[in-house]
Structure formats: C-alpha cells, structure tokens
C-alpha cells in the first residue's frame, strides 16, 4: 500500500522530506560521494551503501539460470508423457501431462524476454497472428491446449507435441549461455505478476483449460525465486521494502492455498466465485505494487542528475 504521499505533498517546505518522497532512498545517493571504505557492515542507513553495479547481478542471474535448468528437465519428461498420451489417444492422461508441463513453464516465466522466438513457439498465443487460432504459426502449449480442451481431441494435438519437445531441448541447451540483462532482471520481479494479471487472470492465455490459477501459483513461485536471488542486494538497501513484499506475497500464497484446500485441487479460473476472483486478482495486483519498488532500490545503472519530483520546479529554478 502506498502511504505517506500525502504527507510528502503537504510538507513540501521540508527538503529532508522531499528527498525521501521517492520511497527507496538508495537511488538518491550521489555518485560523487561513495564511501571510502565499505561501510555496509557498520552503517545501516541505506544512503551509505554503494549503489548496485551490473557486476552485482552476475551471481543472481547465474543462480536463476540454474533454477531454470532444474525445471526444464522435469518439464521435458512431462512433455514426453504428453506425447505418449497423445499417441495413445488417452485424452485424460494428455490433459494431466499438459497441466503439469504448462505449470512448470509458467514457473520459469521470469526469463521470457531472454528466450526470444523459442518462447513464442513454446508458449505463444494466437491473438497477434493473422488467422488467429488457424494460423500455422500458432503452435506449442496453447495450440495443444486448444486441441485437448477446446476440441477434446488428441489427434488434433498430435502435430504439435513433437515440435514442442524439440523446442524444449533447444531451450535447455541455450539456457546456460543466455544473456540476462541486469535491469531486465530487476524488472522481472514485478513484471511476472503483471503478466499473470494481463494474460492469466484475464482468462486470455489459457481459455480452454482454465488453468489460470495454476499459472498464478507458478508465476508466484517464479517471482519468489527471482526475489530470492536478489534478496541480499535488496535487504541491505531497503529491509522494509523486502518486508512489505514478503507480506504481500504471503497473503497471496495463503489465498491460493485456501482455494486449493477448499476444493482439493485448484479449480478452473472460470469456476472461481466472483468474490474469490476479486480477492486473488487484488492480492496479485497488491504484490505487484510492492515489487515495483525493487528496480529503484537495486537499479544497476549509473545515477541520473537529480531533478525535483515536482514537475514545475525545475523550470522555475532556471
């Protein structure tokens, strides 16, 4: 929740408060005055902790790549199960394998930008394609989803399972060397859940299987992994931000578990009662709101010249 804005606006005369309005504090540190020796062990004030440098992201992104690899192995096996079930014409087994594979893929969603065309081929939707669902470019998980749920047919899915398995193998080979930009990575911490709101809870990405809740659970897990790798960088600079984030993620996690416990498993999103939908979407948005302050606190870019937050001030100063 964003509090204190009012206080800031009402206390414009106080320069000290004005400087604190941005929330993070670390971002306002002057580049010209880095501490001569590492103070981080002695000083808790975030302003005295050096800015995050691109090099600080080497370890977090390496850790994240390792996590992606640990997920891709099981996902390949799930896709093999899917392939076997489709070949055997076993619709129910195929659906089960698809749900497992899709949830697995959603749990590594933080890397979507880095996967490029492969991601489009594995997880793309039909919305931007000429011809929509009939486009030959509509492939991968969601084309198979259309076959298994929309058309209730394993035969319709058959042409797509082989290429999906091949794409996954290619992806697995590329992950160890894939470039993950530090700033992009910092942004992922809130963009994954924005993706959930945009694509999943809107019912757009998985309309046939209704698996948005599974995707939400997986996206939340992916967010937690990203956050875990950045934990050290954030907590030194803004321990309170991390607390706020963890509280909002815990509320979301508890709410998903509650829905799961009530039904024994996660229901289709379109069967979730209105009030519960409002709650889950609201908590997802609430978490994104908190996570959005992460890039400010651990921005790897050199600082930009300071400018007042009030749009009119600079012009008047000249």
């Amino acid at each position: 929740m964003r509090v204190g804005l009012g206080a800031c606006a009402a206390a414009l005369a106080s320069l000290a408060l004005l400087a604190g309005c941005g929330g993070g504090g670390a971002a306002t540190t002057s580049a010209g005055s880095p501490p001569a020796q590492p103070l981080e062990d002695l000083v808790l004030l975030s302003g005295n902790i050096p800015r995050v440098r691109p090099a600080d992201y080497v370890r977090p992104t390496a850790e994240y790549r390792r996590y992606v690899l640990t997920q891709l192995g099981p996902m390949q096996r799930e896709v093999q199960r899917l392939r076997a079930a489709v070949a055997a014409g076993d619709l129910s087994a195929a659906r089960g394998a698809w749900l497992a594979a899709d949830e697995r893929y959603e749990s590594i969603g933080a890397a979507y930008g880095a996967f490029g065309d492969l991601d489009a081929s594995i997880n793309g939707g039909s919305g931007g394609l000429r011809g929509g669902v009939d486009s030959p470019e509509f492939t991968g998980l969601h084309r198979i989803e259309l076959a298994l749920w929309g058309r209730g047919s394993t035969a319709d899915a058959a042409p797509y399972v082989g290429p999906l398995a091949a794409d996954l193998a290619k992806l697995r080979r590329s992950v160890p060397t894939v470039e993950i930009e530090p700033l992009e990575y910092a942004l992922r911490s809130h963009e994954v859940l924005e993706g959930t709101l945009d694509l999943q809870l809107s019912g757009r990405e998985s309309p046939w299987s209704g698996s948005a809740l599974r995707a939400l659970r997986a996206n939340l897990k992916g967010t937690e992994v990203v956050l875990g790798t950045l934990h050290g960088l954030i907590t030194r600079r803004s321990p309170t931000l991390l607390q706020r984030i963890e509280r909002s993620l815990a509320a979301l996690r508890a709410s998903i578990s509650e829905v799961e416990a009530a039904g024994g498993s996660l229901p289709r999103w379109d069967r979730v009662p209105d009030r519960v939908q409002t709650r889950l979407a609201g908590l997802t948005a609430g978490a994104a709101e908190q996570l959005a302050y992460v890039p400010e606190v651990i921005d790897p870019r050199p600082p930009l010249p300071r400018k007042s937050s009030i749009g009119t001030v600079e012009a008047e100063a000249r």
Partner: protein
Amino acid sequence: MSLRRRELLIGGVAAGAGAAISRIAGVDPAARAEAVTAVEGKLSERVGFEGAHQAGILTARPRHAIFASFDAIAASPAELAEGLRTLSERGRLLSGGYDALLGSPGEGPTPDSGVLGPVVSPDALTVTIGFGASLFDQRYGLASHRPLGLRPMPAFPDDDLDQSECHGDVIVQLCANTEETLLHALRDVSRSTRGVLGPRWKIEGFLPSPTRESGAGRNLLGFKDGTANPDVENERTMRELVWTGSEEPPWARGGTYQVVRIIRNRVEFWDRVSRSEQELMIGRDKAAGAPLGKDAELDDPEYAQDPKGERIPLDAHIRLARPRTPDTEGSRILRRGYNYSRGIDEADQLDMGLVFVSFQRDLERQFEAVQKRLAGEPLVDYVVPTGGGYFFLPPGARDSQDWVGSGLFL
C-alpha cells in the same frame, strides 16, 4: 556531483517549494476568496472533504461521476483500517488540490499518474465513501457494528441483476466537473489501497450541461429528472429524510443510506414510442417538464383535482413515485443520479441509461416504499435495473486527522 551544481539545485528546489506552497490555495486567503467567487465548473472550485456529513451528498452535482465498488481483501482488521484511513487521506488531498509528484530520475514507480499534469486542481472533486452489508460479516469482526438498516440490495420483481455488477464491501463515489479529474482520482485511490481493496465493478455517469436549459437535467429518455427532489437547504427536512440519528449505533449517526441502481434504458424501444404515450408513462410534458396539464416544471401536479387520473394517469411514474399525500411524504428520497452510456449488447442494442442514486435515512420506509409503489408501472417495459447495491455512508471526517469510518475501529 560538484558543489556548485549541488548549490544550484538546492536553491532551485527551495525556490520551487516556496512557489508550490503559495499555489496550494486554501492556505492563502486571497486564493480562497477567488475560489468562492468562482463560477460553477471552474477547475479551482473546491468542496471541503471534512465536516459533520460527507461531501457528495447534499453538495451540488458536478457534471461527472464514477461509482466504484470494492471488496475488502485485507488480511486483518488493522490492515483494513489502515486502507480506509489511506482512502480518506487521498480523498482529502485530491479534493483540495496539490502539486503532483511526477517522479524523478532514479525514482521507482511514478508517484502520480500525471494525468492532470504537474498541478492537480480540485475541480469540485468529492470523494464519498460507503460500506456494503457484506463488510459486516465475520472477517473483520465488524458484525456487531452493522448499521441497523443495512442489508444487501434485494432483487425487485422488475430487476434483471447481473451479480458481477452488484453489491460490494466498500463503495467510492467520485464526482467532479471533468472526467479527467475523476480518472486521476480513481487511479490514485485504487493504487493507494491496492492489496486492501479489490476492485469489483464501476460505472461512470454524466449530466447534461447546465447551460443547455434551466431546471432539472434530462435523463436519456429525454425527460427532465430530479425536479421533485427535497430541498437540501432545509436542515429539518434533511434530518427527517437523509441523515441517520439516534436509531443507529453512535458511530453511524449523521450518516446516510445510499442506493445505487444501474438502470438500463431500452432507448431504441423508447424512441419508437409516440410523445404522448411517453408523457402518459412519465406524467410530465416532454418539452417544459411541467406536470401534464400544468405550465411550468415546478408546478404542483395537484393530484387531488385529478382523482381518476384523467390528466396524469394513476400509474404515471411521477405520480407513483411521489403521490404527494400526507402519508407518503415521509417516503421521499434525495435523488442524485447520473446518466450513463457504455457499449452495445449482444443484440447490438445501446447500453445506456441511468445510474440511479438516492440518499435516505431509512431504506425500508423510503426507497423500498417508493419501489413498491412503482412495481409494474408501464415504464418497466423500457427500463431494466441491472446492477447496484445498498451502502451505508458514515458521517464525515471530523478534522484533518479523522477519516471516514474511523468510528468502526475505535
């Protein structure tokens, strides 16, 4: 950063802050005088947030409104209270006007959407906050605080309710002279309560320009609407008809009950009806708005002289809504509705109509009594209530530290 540049910047910020303070009208007597003499519809027009009663009930209707319903999704009563306190804090700030924090390089999420630019003018904005019956369930321990007359809006026989546009734990009514002020305020209050209040439904309304003609504005049936409203200047009438009193628990005295009803008008059907037939259904002349057989909008319809309904049919809308008999005058309501227009339906028919809004002290004695009289009126073929809810609007924030609903959490 060199010392020279730093000095320049600090000097600049200080000068700017001084200028900003002088622009916060209200602390400056000259600016206040200007606001009072401002003509209606000016950006500088300011409606105070604090007072015994909330703004946006008796205050003049600006031309635009948004009704936004939320569900409480906070994990605890303390979090909910904090969210409601924030809601009032934002309402107070937004309706007073301020210099927007547009953000600065290196800062995170932009503090203000910037929709209104660097200066947020008050623009007659009111932020009015209410609670639905569902807030008083077991979740937040508020069950024993429920206002006496508050319950979920029932479905009336002529309704066709879409549950996804009904009810809600919290309602926020935003009114202002311009739409952009409303959208700015909506984004601000939604964002500052994210994770505490989950958006449920909203509807936007508008009124015709007051320069078009005098008297009550027209609804989308083309008839003047709101003519027979009680006099908001009459304190005694307002106490009788609008403000709650000693019948309520202490925290809820000086509040009011709000009915919001999204009433779709079947405008294509209506436009295929002749003027005289329309007038007989409504009971008023379409041009002047006068009761049928009378000359002026504000003329008394004098039903006593027309006992058989030869001039104004017995089932005409205005006659059923307000029969003007001694035993029905206590059921009068204060209407403050807005027209709405949005998409088209699956049969390609326009979706437009009235966001009916009324304020009353007692839902059963007033709104529901009127509703009962109107049941089955000829007009029901052309109007379909599709959404809305009952809400209780607590008394206003007493001072700059108080917030709407604080009495619930004492």
